């Protein structure tokens, strides 16, 4: 249970980073934190107390496994997260080259 609360905490820290921070890189870090917390949540969903890795080997005595499906989902989600983070950082670097700053208060061409 405590781990679930920690996952929620991590998610809220990420939301705080996205909403309150003014530096582009810190916003990216906020999104990454949210992503980790969701991944952690998915892993916890599949966890079975006392379960082993779901691999059938010879001489198997225990029949209690953790759920492998959320783990497969998390692996996919990590790869997708890598792509989004890489693209976000690439755009952030391009913005820095154009504007000379990471501060979102000075990057405000679009409005209305």
């Amino acid at each position, binding site marked *: 249970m405590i781990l679930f609360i920690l996952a929620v905490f991590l*998610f809220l820290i990420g939301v705080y980073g*996205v909403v309150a921070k003014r530096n*582009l890189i810190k*916003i990216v870090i906020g*999104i990454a934190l*949210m*992503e980790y917390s*969701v991944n952690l*949540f*998915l892993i916890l*969903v599949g966890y079975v107390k006392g379960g082993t890795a779901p691999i059938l080997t010879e001489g198997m005595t225990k029949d209690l496994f953790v759920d492998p*499906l*959320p783990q497969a*989902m998390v692996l*996919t*989600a990590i790869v*997708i997260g890598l*792509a*989004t983070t890489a*693209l*976000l950082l690439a*755009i*952030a670097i*391009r*913005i820095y080259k*154009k*504007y000379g700053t990471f501060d979102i208060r000075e*990057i*405000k*061409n*679009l409005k*209305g």
Partner: protein
Amino acid sequence: MDFLVPLFVVVPLGGAFLIAIIGNLARGFGRYFTSIVFAFLTGLCIYFMLHLEGPVVFKVGGWELFESIPIAIYMVIDGLSIYLLLIINLIGFLSAFYSISYMKRYTAESHYYTLFCLMTAGMNGVVMSGDLFNIYVFLEIAAIASYALVAFEIEKEQLEASFKYQVLGGVSSLFILLSIGFLYWYTSTLNIADVSRMIVAGGKREVVIFTQVILLSGFGLKAAMIPFHAWLPDAHSSAPSPISSMLSGVLIKAIGAYVILRLFFNMFAITYNIGMVITVIGTLSMVIGVLLAIGQWDIKRLLAYHSISQMGYVILGVGIGMLVLANNGDRAVATLSIAGGLFHLFNHAVFKGLLFLNAGAVEYETGIRDMKKLGGLSAKMPVTTSTSLSASMSISGIPPFNGFFSKLIIIIAAIQAGYYVLSILAVFVSIITLASFLKVQRYTFFNRSGEEWEKRGKQVREVPFSMCFSMIVLAILCFVLSTLIVPSVRDVILTPAVDVLVKAGEYTTAVLGY
């Protein structure tokens, strides 16, 4: 027929890889190959539409049911999916054909076509998927490609818009993933049909309601419904024009509105509360979107705000249908209302796609997007002017164009269901839309006060053939789609899609087969 199902994803995905490899060696390759890919897919859609009887299920990997548990990833094409697939690939083909001339002045053309194919592959996948996590994966493919396409011109505005879009899009994707996690926790399955069965059987309503709220905010952000709309005007106006027409015409429907419809009708049981939330969100988008649009002077920003407003009509029509179904009201009214919503979805794809292509043609010739500086183009660009006029009349609901009929159906359904205020609001929004598009027509094409392009010494003439072709085809479609109210045409295209939503409970049995 089920072996043809994966082609909708495989062909554009393979096309993207081929263009990425060969496009660097032969420069013109991607330009023509993309159009061929989408022409093929549109043909395939029409073939499916004519031969579809009940949902076609393709099980990836060929895994059959194991003790009545679905193991394989399901790809399902039913009436609603094929309706969306037709919209995506038709608008995709016309945008790709338009790009042949439009994108010639850009460098890195093959990258553009690669991303274009990837984005459409993602959208096709979302629309066909019968599996929750698969929806998430395809949605991210479409979304990441669209982030990159918004930033394609890499100037200050485009980069800023893309960053904004990515932050909000990333947050919405995480909400979606979180709600998928909750649903898996609750039901121990990811197959939509199976989840639906588990939810009906299971107890705790609180978990389901909590999940519904997260899902609605996640997909609401993707569909740019009103409290979540901030990214749309920036992103859609910054992309190259054929992409704007894909984003506004198709993307917000395929990965936003469609998934909301599919999940809330076919997966969750329809409840009055959720129907009310969806109707209110639709109404708010419809009214506030148009009020924000009327003050805009940048032609593409104005069109982007109108996308929010017109999607409000779609959601409103479907929401009223949901309310009537939840109250066990007259099924004929619910059918009419949902038919109006889905009809407007197709119409919006056509006329908004056309309007963005027109805006692109104006920008291509004059290099100006500010309407105050334009004017007097009607003599120089007759095709653009006339197609834009028909699209404007269509979006503001003037008979005999398609927009009139879909709005009329939604308004009649709202009156029959007893929501008089909503019908009056729908008429009111339509009038403001008309005012706003009169402004577009007058300042862009007919007024002779601005004409900044003449002072700059630009030689303005009609745009090249491929751009004209796409615009003319879409303008003809604005007329032709009116025939969807004729019963024999409607039964082929619209009725199967409406049936999927009205007879929501039948989806589970039809897909699982027991």
